[in-house]
């Protein structure tokens, strides 16, 4: 028996998110009394042997032309094959965009129960039981599997990253391409220098209180000094002030960063649903009655156009001193 984990890479690079998945897998394997094996797909520009720092026993690297671009069905086929070869009954996948597309297809091919939107380590191993988020952040539910094979799709930033030491062997593994119905990737357009929201540890978010898209410079400056991702409320994305991909909330992206700073967002129930899992919430609003202050850890009532630049300055000073 073993635990398999997808070590996702982006243009050949691993991220913190990759290692969170590795750590999640090795902790789960510990609970099950078995080993955790990493799977890397495609060309990489850095070594995967760092996986040893997070408790994996080895890494399998599949570098096949058929897997050069992402396809849910084909990737699922490769994983199902490796899972069978390594007698893996549990597969761990982080809830990135590709992870969310891969997991359902793999659950069919590997005849596995899929436990998704999982927010912490498994609470029990037999039967495998997890805590998952439901009703878009408004509740949680204990979900148990009734199957032997299982896939856990966890929400990024669910467990704190701890780094040990050691390096692991990276072995090359093969993939037998079958007749999968696939998509053809024509082009990839990634915004350079931006931190994708689901994995961002800190997020600065703006709402209608900012009055117009031209006022986002100060949000971006605050995000830059915090090394944070930028986000917005639904009305802001509906009015096209900011792209849809920045919309956090019930019908946008649900996030759980360490720090969420909401500027000029009133805090409607739909918005809070998507951000309430954040560890620390700061609300800045001119309206002392804004509902966000009931959901926040820290609040400042006042004019965002004065407070935000001041906060950026103070953070710069803090960074210089620490």
């Amino acid at each position, binding site marked *: 028996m073993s635990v398999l984990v997808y070590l996702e890479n982006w243009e050949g690079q691993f991220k913190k998110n990759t290692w969170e998945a590795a750590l999640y897998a090795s902790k789960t394997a510990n609970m099950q009394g078995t080993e955790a094996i990493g799977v890397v797909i495609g060309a990489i520009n850095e070594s995967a042997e760092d996986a040893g720092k997070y408790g994996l026993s080895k890494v399998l690297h599949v570098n096949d032309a058929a897997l050069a671009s992402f396809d849910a069905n084909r990737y699922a086929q490769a994983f199902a094959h490796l899972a069978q070869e390594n007698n893996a009954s549990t597969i761990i996948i982080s809830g990135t965009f590709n992870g969310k597309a891969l997991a359902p297809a793999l659950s069919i091919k590997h005849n596995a129960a899929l436990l998704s939107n999982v927010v912490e380590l498994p609470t029990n191993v037999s039967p495998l039981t997890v805590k998952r988020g439901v009703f878009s952040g408004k509740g949680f539910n204990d979900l148990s599997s009734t199957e032997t094979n299982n896939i856990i799709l966890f929400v990024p930033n669910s467990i704190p990253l701890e780094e040990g030491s050691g390096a692991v062997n990276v072995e090359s593994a093969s993939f037998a391409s079958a007749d999968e119905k696939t998509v053809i990737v024509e082009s990839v357009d990634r915004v350079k220098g931006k931190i994708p929201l689901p994995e961002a540890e800190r997020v600065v978010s703006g709402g209608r209180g900012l009055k117009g898209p031209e006022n986002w410079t100060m949000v971006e400056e605050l995000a830059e000094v915090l090394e944070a991702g930028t986000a917005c409320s639904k009305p802001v994305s509906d009015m096209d002030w900011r792209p849809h991909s920045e919309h956090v909330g019930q019908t946008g992206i649900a996030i759980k960063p360490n720090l969420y700073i909401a500027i000029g967002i009133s805090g409607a129930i739909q918005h809070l649903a998507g951000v309430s899992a954040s560890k*620390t919430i700061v609300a800045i609003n001119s309206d002392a009655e804004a509902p966000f202050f009931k959901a926040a850890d820290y609040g400042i009532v006042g004019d965002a156009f004065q407070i935000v630049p001041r906060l950026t300055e*103070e953070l710069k000073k803090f960074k210089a001193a620490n």
Partner: protein
Amino acid sequence: MKVLVCISHVPDTTSKINFTADNSAFDKNGVQFVINPYDEFGLTRAVWLKEKQGAQITVLNVGRAETEPTLRKALAIGADAAIRVDADPSDSFYVAQQIAAVAKEGAYDLILAGRESIDYNGGQVPGMVASILNLPFVNACVGMEVSDNEASLIREIDGGKEKVKANLPLVVGGQKGLVEEKDLRIPNMRGIMQARSKALDVRAPQEIAAKTSTGAFTKPAPKSAVKMIDADNVAELVRLLHEEAKVI
């Protein structure tokens, strides 16, 4: 072109969520149900395909009779026919198998479902349907153009977008971007009248065993009281974030 739009029947986004006294289930009392917002974008996109390219739209729900008003609403928005698989949607695998069976029998060219539903947020059904039927799958789709036998699509990826092409039949997990929020169709009086006479076919489910079982539901722990900081003393916030919250 035959389009199948999968419709989830979910609590309105403004609903306060409560669980039954023994915490074993969602408490539906006093809750208004709507078409899952992620499914609405696919439904309106399908209506455009009908208006511009002559597509035929069938909407599908796996649920009990209580979901029929939601299906009637989808008919009023512009779907031609509705199917309800008469079963409790016990888990995503169970629902995906029911949808796959309907899709296979109806030989649809395009199967649209929301990327996730706002009740259980599993995000599993469309990908499972594609895999069961061995059809290409595009998730988190924010743009789609369909011609006779192929589609060009844009999907969201971490920190960007990807343009892909796929042959029909195809399964799409949709979201905002398939159409814009302002373009979402709502039922008008004529649509509501017409919907009354459209077919709503109730079918018996396939015999499928679910793969998961739900235990207790809980609510998030309440936040401790907010600490207010003076607008003239922003340095205090920085200190608290560092020393107390330890997030910077």
